[in-house]
């Protein structure tokens, strides 16, 4: 694909204006290929990122830097399918996913 989405990082700038990710346990729904995940992960205690698109999640996994490997977990699932312990995250990020 020859397109480049948001090279100006406007989304990430907005996330940083409104969100404080430091030390937060984050769940992300609609992570796609991990564009936003990678932008926030280093600040967090950890990110569990979901997307129903298996190909996008595979791209996300393959581009995950080794230094973030212990901090980010990508999973293929939709918002209806996700089963996690209630209250187990500090912050939820919905990326065009509700």
């Amino acid at each position: 694909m020859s397109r480049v989405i948001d090279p100006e990082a406007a989304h990430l700038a907005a996330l940083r204006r409104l969100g404080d990710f430091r030390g937060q346990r984050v769940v992300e729904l609609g992570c796609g290929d991990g564009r936003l995940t990678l932008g926030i992960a280093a600040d967090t205690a950890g990110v569990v990122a979901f997307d129903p698109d298996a190909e996008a999640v595979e791209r996300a996994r393959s581009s995950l830097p080794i230094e973030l490997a212990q901090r980010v977990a990508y999973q293929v699932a939709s918002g209806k399918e996700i089963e996690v312990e209630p209250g187990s995250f500090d912050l939820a990020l919905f990326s065009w996913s509700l």
Partner: protein
Amino acid sequence: MHVLHNMVNTVRPGGTVLDLQVIRPNPRVEVAERLICEVDGSPLFRRADAATDAIDALIAAGRLLEEAVDDHDVRTHYPSGADLVDDFEDKQRRLPEEAIPALRTIEPPCVLRERCRLRRITVRCAADAWC
């Protein structure tokens, strides 16, 4: 909306929800910041409106509290008009039919500019608790 309730339940009381949605006006196709055409964004707006309504209902019920809103433009860059047209072939949003022939002839880079809204929302209480 089952998805919203399911996801909000994953966040502890006092935690944060950040919701990113596309908003009106229609996305614009631009070359060097000059408007070429608008894209009918209604398929995405319908979904975004439904999501916003669902969150607003939880705010009205006292379960969530909206604390901040950030509207911003996001650009997707294409090497040419033809690349942009090709990328739209499998999208819900449609380019105006009458604009496609001219778009295909555009050789310089094209930009799709969309307006987005990020909302910061606090979870006030657990699903099974009184707020």
